[in-house]
């Protein structure tokens, strides 16, 4: 067992366990914190896959922004400081069954891939970071998805502000 394999196994186990705690934890704030552990585990896996830039973007975007947003939403949408009522549907066993069936189906699919047992290909000599940057602004490559994603983010920004704004009574009075 090489060091990298041990690191992968530990990280994978932590990520999966944190994921189980996210979906099973009765207290919602604990579930949000376990989500952060799971996201950090995925960031470590990105580093193992030599995608350093994606790993730090994962930490900045997911943990530094989305997870904090989720925690805020959990805290702002409760009447008392504790959760109230059952947190899972009464038919949760059906959900578990369908998740297991889905996993079986996915497993059957991916084991049929010819590249299933592939080992790592050699990395190209040049740093992938510069290539990523230039490909996002190259007209012949990925400029269009980049621009569309930025328009999407702008629309989401404006939409979220418009939706979450408290209803203002004095539309005609104020500026």
């Amino acid at each position, binding site marked *: 067992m090489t060091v*990298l*394999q041990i690191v*992968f196994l530990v990280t994978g186990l932590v990520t*999966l366990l944190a*994921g*189980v705690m*996210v*979906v099973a934890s009765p207290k*919602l704030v604990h579930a949000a914190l376990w989500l952060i552990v*799971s*996201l950090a585990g*995925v960031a470590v*896996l*990105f580093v193992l*896959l030599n*995608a350093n830039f*994606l790993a730090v*973007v*994962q930490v900045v*975007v*997911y943990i530094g*922004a*989305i997870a904090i947003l*989720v925690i805020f*939403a*959990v805290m*702002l*949408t409760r*009447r008392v400081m504790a959760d109230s009522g*059952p947190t*899972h*549907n009464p038919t949760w066993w*059906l*959900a578990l069954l*369908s*998740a297991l069936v*889905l*996993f079986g189906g996915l497993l059957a699919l991916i084991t049929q891939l010819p*590249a*299933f*047992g592939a*080992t*790592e*290909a*050699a990395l*190209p000599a040049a740093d992938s970071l510069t*290539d*990523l940057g230039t*490909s*996002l602004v190259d007209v012949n490559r*990925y400029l269009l*998805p980049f621009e569309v*994603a930025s328009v*999407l983010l702008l629309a*989401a920004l404006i*939409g*979220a*502000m418009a*939706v*979450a704004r408290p209803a203002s009574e004095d539309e005609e009075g104020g500026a």
Partner: protein
Amino acid sequence: MIPLSWYLILSALLFCIGVFGVLARRNAVGILMGIELMLNAVNLNLVAFWRYLTPGMIGGQVFTLIVFAVAASEAAVGLALIISIYRRRSTVVADEINLMKW
């Protein structure tokens, strides 16, 4: 060496855990957390395929970046909607937000 199969099985497991979360949780924010888990599993899959099969083509990482952007915007708008619903109906339990049911 770590074979590709380990990453694929890990991301499939994470995806199915997310599916369970979406289907079993009552709280809308809890459902959103399951969706985030699913998106992370997809990202992991994309980057694993990029690294193992085509590390010379940067398209795998570009796809992952776009998924990041989409996930961020979806989380922002979704949570804004949830907070807005909470202001009007004082509940975020998905079963009770049923005004538009027939």
